[in-house]
């Protein structure tokens, strides 16, 4: 690994690289949340971090935009250590979508989507045009939805706005933490299909956290399985189910019993 780190960072071909990353909460002894994780995410990859609750997948995601810093090891984004990045600049170049959407309740849909472009100092007319473009991209009619407040949207619509907001400033990296987890099954399936198509078209580097293997198979170009803070399996979707590991088999078994699973 040390030879890998000696490579000049500017020439690092990875969009995101974790090298021997551990994370433990300060002052709390015991098992670390992440233990010696190494992972490379190439530009244009859609990596799905799969795992049970508490497996460390969300923590791994939050290391990318420096919401957390690793206790050990290194996280490199776009050729630079996250600890060396100005955190504000780093985050403005990374889209972020979470389960509850986290839309600002006191902003309209248009203001929510235009937020990061606004922070980046885009002129108002360019922001307005971009907001319309983003709303169309996620299947919401701009004239109808722009002036609405988040409370006037359904759960599915809120997540669409969340995705539009994350994409507004055209960041090269998109982080998604169970973005469709709180939706009803029908709406979730709709959004998953649409997002899978969208992701292909946009060619962003995507890191997607889920505990749903079906979602992982649908959206990932690579599936990384975490268990107790360690990577236990990683493969393309076609090969993933063939991996002989108890945790992979446990997830595969969940496919058969999941409601609405194909027979």
């Amino acid at each position, binding site marked *: 690994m040390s030879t890998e780190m000696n490579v000049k960072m500017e020439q690092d071909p990875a969009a995101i690289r974790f090298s021997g990353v551990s994370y433990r909460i300060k002052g709390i002894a015991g098992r670390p949340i992440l233990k010696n994780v190494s992972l490379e995410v190439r530009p244009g990859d859609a990596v799905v971090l799969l795992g049970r609750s508490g497996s460390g997948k969300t923590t791994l995601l939050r290391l990318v935009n420096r*919401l957390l810093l690793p206790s050990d090891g290194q996280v490199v984004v776009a050729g630079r250590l996250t600890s060396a990045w100005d955190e504000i*600049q780093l*985050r403005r170049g990374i889209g972020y979508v979470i389960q509850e959407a*986290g*839309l*600002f*309740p006191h902003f309209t849909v248009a203001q929510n989507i235009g937020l990061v472009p606004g*922070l980046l100092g885009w002129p108002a007319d360019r922001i307005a045009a971009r907001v319309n473009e983003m709303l169309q991209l996620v299947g919401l009619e701009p004239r109808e939805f722009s002036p609405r407040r988040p409370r006037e949207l359904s759960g599915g619509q809120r997540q669409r706005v969340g995705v539009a907001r994350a994409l507004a400033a055209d960041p090269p990296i998109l982080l998604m933490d169970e973005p469709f987890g709180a939706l009803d099954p029908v709406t979730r399936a709709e959004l998953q299909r649409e997002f899978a198509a969208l992701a292909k078209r946009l060619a962003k580097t995507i890191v997607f956290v889920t505990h749903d293997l079906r979602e992982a198979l649908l959206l990932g170009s690579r599936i990384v399985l975490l268990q107790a803070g360690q990577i236990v399996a990683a493969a393309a979707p076609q090969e993933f189910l063939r991996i002989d590991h108890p945790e992979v088999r446990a997830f595969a078994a969940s496919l058969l019993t999941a409601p609405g699973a194909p027979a």
Partner: protein
Amino acid sequence: MSALRFFRTHQAEIFAATLQHMTLVLIAMVIAIAIGVPLGMLIVRRPALRSLALAVASVFQTIPSLALFGFLIPIPFLGGIGRRTAVVALVLYALLPILRNTYVGLTGIDPAVLESAEAMGMTQSQILLRVRLPLALSVILAGIRTATVITIGVATIAAAIGAGGLGTFIFRGVAMVSDAVILAGAVPAAALALLADGLLALLERRLKVS
């Protein structure tokens, strides 16, 4: 002497006292807000200062108002007889609801909203000014409303240290054993409190974001 007749014959005097009362409350509230809201913003990020500030503000609330006015009289600069001392005491009373509600409002925001704000690359001051404060505004205003109603009531006691206001009638009425005179102070004070409460409740509802 009937209360109504006393009201009619002393109209000008009651009106002047009401104005004096309102001025006293207004000055105290402006100062209390100017101290309480920024202090509330400060203690969000300073846990050590937080317990101290809230404890001190709570202690002032527990001191009986008449005693607090009395304690202040011998203190140089802040104390003495008259309106300045009254304002100091009223500010100390008004501080706790404003301080506490500012803190509660700023910290009671949906964590998903704050996480998004941080993850989108907003600076701490942008988060405070564009997310926390607007979302906390109705809670802060509720604190200001409580403080205003308390202050209008407590301000009647300020008459005891020569600050004037509607309390003058109440103390005079007690001394004269005259309900009419007491009511001349109590009724306008109650009306002021109800009016302030209603107006601020209206404003609070308009600012509320659900």
